[in-house]
């Protein structure tokens, strides 16, 4: 794996995303509609716990929708072409980094929309943001490999959710806990063990994805 091939592959994904704006537009619209549905059904801010849970659920579903297409956007023959050009590690790392970037942007956009409709109860914005960015990176690192697995099957849209949910769930609980602390105004020091767990998890997922992806990529 070379750094240059990873960079080129990420740039290819960015260009592809830009040329097929409808796909990413669909995900953004999905995000806005979900927030709006939440806003109408909950009639504004309910309480801190509901605010928190809603925010993370919406982010999770957006992540699943956005990352799902990682290996389904392009057809088999194009994958075969990439296979001759670039190593498996290059592909998975590029996809993970690209998804992390995409999810960070989507997460920030989602936060803005969410704040607009549901009000802003965040007491420590710094901690909330760091936790959210770590969360979006962790989501994308776990879900990228899952999307590679799901793309190999027949009913890949359902599979993505059933394979991904149980693996994301424990992670989601840590994220919700930290973000709940941030809503109540906790300091970085109080949340540092949880943040460390998140970073540890991201590292483990990166290593595992690099170890396992070559076995899926090679047809």
């Amino acid at each position, binding site marked *: 794996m070379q750094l240059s091939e990873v960079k080129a592959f990420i740039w290819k994904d960015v260009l592809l995303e830009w040329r097929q704006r409808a796909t990413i537009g669909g995900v953004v619209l999905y995000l806005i509609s979900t927030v709006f549905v939440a806003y109408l059904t909950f009639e504004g801010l309910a309480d801190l716990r509901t605010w928190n849970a809603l925010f993370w659920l919406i982010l999770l579903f957006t992540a699943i929708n956005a990352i799902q297409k990682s290996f389904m956007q392009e057809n088999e023959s194009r994958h075969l072409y990439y296979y001759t050009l670039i190593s498996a590690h290059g592909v998975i790392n590029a996809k993970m980094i690209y998804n992390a970037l995409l999810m960070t942007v989507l997460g920030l956009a989602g936060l803005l929309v969410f704040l607009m409709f549901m009000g802003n109860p965040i007491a420590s914005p710094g901690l909330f943001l760091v936790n959210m960015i770590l969360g979006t990176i962790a989501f994308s690192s776990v879900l990228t490999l899952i999307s590679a*697995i799901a793309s190999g099957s027949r009913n890949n849209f359902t599979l993505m959710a059933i394979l991904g949910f149980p693996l994301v769930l424990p992670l989601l609980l840590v994220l919700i806990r930290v973000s709940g602390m941030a809503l109540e105004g906790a300091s970085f020091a109080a949340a540092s063990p*949880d943040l460390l767990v998140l970073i540890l998890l991201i590292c483990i997922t990166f290593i*595992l994805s690099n170890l*396992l992806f070559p*076995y899926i990529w090679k*047809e």
Partner: protein
Amino acid sequence: MKSITHKWLKIAGVILLVYVIAGGFLFDVPALPVVQQSIRNIYFHVGMWFGMMFILLISLGYSVRFLLYRLPEDDMKALSAVRTGLLFGTLGLLTGMIWAKFTWGAFWVNDPKLNGAAVGMLVYLAYIVLRGSVEEEDKRGRLAAVYNIFAFVLFFVFIMIIPRMAAASIHPGTDGNPALSVGDLAPEMRKVFFPAMAGWFIMAWWLYSLLYRSTRIDHKISELNNN
């Protein structure tokens, strides 16, 4: 030679479990508040979870082997082990729920360890669904093996970390270890507890080998039908 040792192992397993069932219900147990006689469930409930972890480790081993050597037998072994693990896990949940009803007052309580166990079951059910939705044999094996390894590591990392961090769990076992430490066990219970664990391990392995053989036969039959 191999089949003889297997035979004796199976006979030993049956004898052990007959002893465990008889001893588990008849021998004296210390009378402790709240738990009372329901402590007898420890021989069954803990046995189910240990049996499940043992058999899921076997499954993990065969998934790794499959990725390295690509033998269809390893894939079938991994699948059979997951099926056995699911059976033991379901029984572990059921015995745990009965126990919870008597000691905590409800079949399910919102506790990190219980929820962790439920998530674990979802992971392996998803594994079965994944296999059902890929037709090509080698590809199915590879995808399933990759998911098995990924899920196992992520899940066990979390089973180790989350209960340690979460506020107190009412399930016994400290430091994220979801079972008792043996030192806490009353001496008179150890003479049933250890045979029980050995017996359930043998039973798990036996069931797994039966499932594997039937899967292999099914595979052979479908191969013959296709030719």
